[in-house]
């Protein structure tokens, strides 16, 4: 079993930080709603939710920064003139066919920008929650804003994740040195 270095970074960006963030979003939405509408939470549970949101902030920023500064340059790399095999140049590979061009012109063009709404939104959500804690339940409008931005963060990460997966299906980022994963198959 083997994986290329670029493939591994794409995996860390998408299946690591990105997918973990998406999984965490649904939990955060439920817990934020419950926390701000109930008085039954303990100090320990409040502390856990703070830690949970801070972890989400780290995941969101790590995902967009690795995406933009590590993976995206490989995606948008320009091939030397006359290159016939575009498999190492995902953007050009997608553009080269009418059946895949929209994965770039719609998918990647939207993904590369909308993804950044996730870390901006969740950073605000975490700040307001940490600042107000239980008192957030007494600020109806702030509570609504926090829940709306958390939902928007989920949606933006979902859009980015969906297009990331579809683009990788048709034009994966390839290259870099190969990492061998030893797997002894037992008969």
């Amino acid at each position, binding site marked *: 079993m083997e994986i290329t270095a670029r493939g591994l970074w794409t995996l860390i960006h998408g299946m690591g930080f990105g997918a973990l963030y998406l999984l965490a979003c649904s939990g955060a939405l439920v817990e934020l709603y419950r926390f701000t*509408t109930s008085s039954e939470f303990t100090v320990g549970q409040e502390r856990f939710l703070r830690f949970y949101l801070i972890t989400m902030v780290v995941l969101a920023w790590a995902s967009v920064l690795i995406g933009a500064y590590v993976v995206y340059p490989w995606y948008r790399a320009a091939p030397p003139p006359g290159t016939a095999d575009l498999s190492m140049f995902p953007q050009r590979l997608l553009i080269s066919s009418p059946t895949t061009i929209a994965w770039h012109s719609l998918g990647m063009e939207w993904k590369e920008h909308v993804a950044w709404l996730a870390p901006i939104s969740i950073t605000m959500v975490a700040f307001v929650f940490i600042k107000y804690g239980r008192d957030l339940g*007494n*600020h109806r409008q702030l509570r609504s804003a926090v829940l709306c*931005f958390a939902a928007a963060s989920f949606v933006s990460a979902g859009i980015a994740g969906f297009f990331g997966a579809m683009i990788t299906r048709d034009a994966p980022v390839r290259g870099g040195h190969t990492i061998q994963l030893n797997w002894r198959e037992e008969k």
Partner: protein
Amino acid sequence: MSASSNRPALANGSGAAAVLAAGIGAFALAVLACAGDKLAHVRSSLIFYEPTGPLSGVTTAAILIWLLTWVILEGRWRNKTVPAGRINGAALILLGLSFLLTFPPIADLL
């Protein structure tokens, strides 16, 4: 007993500042993305890191606008009670516009 039945212990200014700054930051990102897509000189001036292209400038500038706005609003509203309903409304409209403006078929209409 519901938590919402108590009087707030903290003024809402700090939270409202964070909410509005997030809306402004998101909108700034969308506007910069549109400008970078439409105007060649803006596009070239947004290339802060060549391998990433204009995306590097769009996101870096938007983050700076977001954080700067946040610091300014936090300084002004920290201990104040502000009309959070209107501020949240504005922030959510900006956030909604950000989703629309980053969507290529809509951005292409501009």
